[in-house]
């Protein structure tokens, strides 16, 4: 009998009381006007995770990512000099979307409309019959977007002049993220889903364990719940500015199915040989504001980003960052299992989140409620709402000035 399993102490109500106890209004979870404010206050100001350095492995690699919340298509290029640069994927002639492919290799980018051609630094290099314009080419470069890398993860910031550098934004989280598999990964697996639900409602589902035993009785089940911790509550919460962390509890007495056990053992062995021994003790969860989290489970480590598409529509992107391509058949089997197992859990979540959105959007209730073990949801709401309120105050000031 493992001593650890004999007792479990959840985070107390008092420890999270500082975030408030009041009911939360439903408006922010469906109101188009609130969503419009979030787009400006959050998605055009915060650093947003949109990819991984392994997608831009060599000079000339590029990717294009749509950020619907900002109505923006972003082109990220690794230049001939090896540096990463990001631009709005918009030709500066008449605004046409410049690159149609989602990824590829190129050192120049030509707009198909009138053949304006830009180099890997975003400079306009050529434009047919340019002497008929009333312009200097030097003034026609692609609009730059701030881009940064932390732990192998790519972030962009759509503010013309970001208030914080990426390092300032992540603060102490960056050093911790740098210890995770994503920092060294050269390969990844991915699955994607669309969902009829507000991005915060989607994200909240993955910030609390209260639902585990009801929604995932089999797919999670006794791996994270037991008589001493029937709801599978976390061992610890931590709040770092607008970001948050939690240490998830693993039931040490859980016995997986036979092949399931073989696959999980292999995944754990790979993590150990990958040098992640210290990370194996517990499942650490990192939530980076606004819409990204990384679950560093010892056996099923994945990242999850929830992109808003509209006030009641989102897209989830789940990734498993691996230390390299498959080395052998057993590793390939274990990784296939990891993706399929996590996908099962997220499919169960997706169904109940949509049901939640339907209820909220019906107008039947004015508030939702977060208990102490849903403190991350409350902290998240508070963080978003503070950004929205600050933006509204700015607008009001401008209105007064005008």
């Amino acid at each position, binding site marked *: 009998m493992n001593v650890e399993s004999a007792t479990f102490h959840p985070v107390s109500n008092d420890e999270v009381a500082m975030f408030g106890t009041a009911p939360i209004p439903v408006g922010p979870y469906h109101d188009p006007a609130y969503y419009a404010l979030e787009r400006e206050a959050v998605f055009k100001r915060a650093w947003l995770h949109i990819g991984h350095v392994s997608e831009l492995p060599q000079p000339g690699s590029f990717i294009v990512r749509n950020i619907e919340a900002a109505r923006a298509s972003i082109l990220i290029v690794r230049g001939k000099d090896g540096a990463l640069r990001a631009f709005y994927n918009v030709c500066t002639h008449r605004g046409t979307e410049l690159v149609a492919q989602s990824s590829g290799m190129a050192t120049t980018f030509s707009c198909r409309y009138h053949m304006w051609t830009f180099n890997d630094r975003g400079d306009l290099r050529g434009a047919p019959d340019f002497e008929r314009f009333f312009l200097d080419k030097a003034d026609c470069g692609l609009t730059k977007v701030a881009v940064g890398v932390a732990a192998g993860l790519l972030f962009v910031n759509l503010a013309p002049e970001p208030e914080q550098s990426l390092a300032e934004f992540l603060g102490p989280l960056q050093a911790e993220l740098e210890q995770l598999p994503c920092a060294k990964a050269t*390969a990844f697996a991915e699955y994607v889903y669309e969902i009829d639900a507000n991005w915060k409602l989607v994200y909240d589902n993955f910030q609390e364990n209260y639902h585990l035993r009801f929604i995932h009785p089999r797919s999670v089940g006794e791996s994270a719940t037991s008589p001493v911790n029937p709801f599978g509550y976390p061992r610890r919460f931590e709040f770092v500015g607008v970001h948050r962390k939690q240490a998830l509890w693993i039931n040490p007495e859980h016995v997986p199915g036979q092949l399931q056990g073989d696959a999980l053992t292999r995944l754990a062995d790979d993590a150990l040989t990958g040098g992640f021994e210290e990370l194996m003790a517990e499942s650490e969860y990192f939530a980076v504001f606004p819409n990204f989290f990384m679950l560093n489970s010892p056996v099923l480590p994945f990242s999850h980003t929830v992109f808003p598409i509209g006030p009641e529509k989102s897209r989830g992107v789940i990734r498993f960052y691996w230390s390299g*391509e498959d080395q052998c*058949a057993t590793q390939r*089997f274990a990784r296939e299992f990891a993706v*399929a197992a996590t*996908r099962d859990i997220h499919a169960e979540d997706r169904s109940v989140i949509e049901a939640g959105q339907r209820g909220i959007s019906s107008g039947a209730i004015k508030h939702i409620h977060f208990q102490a073990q849903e403190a991350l949801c409350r902290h998240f709401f508070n963080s978003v709402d503070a950004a929205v309120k600050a933006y509204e105050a700015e607008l009001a000031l401008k209105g007064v000035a005008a």
Partner: protein
Amino acid sequence: MTLRSVLPAKFATLEPFVEKWALTTSRERSHERENSSLAEMRHFYDVAAPCLKDALAYLDAKSLDSFQPEDERLMALCLSLAHVTLAVEVQGEAEPQNAQYRHEMRITRTTAERAN
């Protein structure tokens, strides 16, 4: 004329499953699970699970890029078994109910597929 074996000889007992389960991509494998009955999957699992360790050991002895077509088929069967294991060992009777939720979860990339 000799026909090449469908699978490496020592795994001949798995040949009846090749047509249904030796699929190329992770997405195809996940779809096949979602479109199969629990009884079909239990049958595959019952026959294939006892062979998995041997099959992976046999394949581990080769480098992934040196697989012959029969090795690729054996690998694909093992990978389908990863999906089927979730249906049989984890979901059990809840599999039909939960399968419907998975249609919207699109696998877009795996390390197993990239090699194909």
